């Protein structure tokens, strides 16, 4: 069994991750993946790059807690969370969450739950470069609300 959490500067391959989630896993019929990428537009600004900082040690611990909670709430099989750090450009993959389950609604719910909690609890920060300069992104109240609904 591979590591459930990876914080890395390198890119990742969706196909490879899903292959690992499905390998020797004949009991789970459902796989749900989420992939987040750098968009060209955030609140009207033309984004050129993002720089992601994190808090090594706490990041892994907070993600492990979120995954444990997802496993307590839903009947899921395997989980993988990858989050990239460092400088990322337009279209680059930022984050991957993959969840397998026997019944699809568990994988859907657990995957969205992990993303919603990652957004408000995992210590990552984004600095955005656009034509208007460089600035740290502000956290969104809507993200707090999404996490609170679970």
């Amino acid at each position, binding site marked *: 069994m591979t590591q459930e959490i990876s914080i890395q500067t390198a890119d990742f391959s969706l196909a490879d991750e899903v292959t690992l989630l499905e390998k020797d896993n004949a009991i789970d019929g459902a796989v749900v993946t989420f992939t987040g990428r750098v968009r060209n537009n955030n609140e009207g600004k033309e984004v050129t790059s993002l720089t992601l900082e994190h808090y090594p040690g706490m990041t892994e611990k907070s993600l492990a807690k979120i995954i444990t909670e997802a496993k307590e709430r839903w009947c899921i099989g395997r989980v993988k969370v990858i989050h990239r750090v460092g400088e990322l450009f337009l279209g680059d993959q930022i984050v991957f969450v993959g969840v397998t389950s026997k019944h699809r609604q568990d994988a859907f719910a657990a995957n969205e739950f992990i993303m919603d909690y990652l957004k408000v609890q995992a210590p990552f*920060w984004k600095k955005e470069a656009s034509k208007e300069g460089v600035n740290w992104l502000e956290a969104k109240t809507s993200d707090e609300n999404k996490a609170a609904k679970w």
Partner: protein
Amino acid sequence: MINVVFFAALREQLDCSELLINDDNLKTVADLKTHLANKNDQWQHVFANSALLTAVNHDMVNNDHSIKSGDEVAFFPPVTGG
């Protein structure tokens, strides 16, 4: 000895990523914040921000959380990953 670390916008505003505090009178996160805020006007300003988050030994905590020698206390803005 408490190891204090700062991240992201906070680190830049304070121009400081890490410092060591050796003061047995600091019993809680709130005590430590008051101590740091007293450094100067800029630190006062930064620590007046109620959105500031605190982690002790990698767990998010509130202001009344106890701290002790050997702890790592982190201050940072609301997170924006994903």
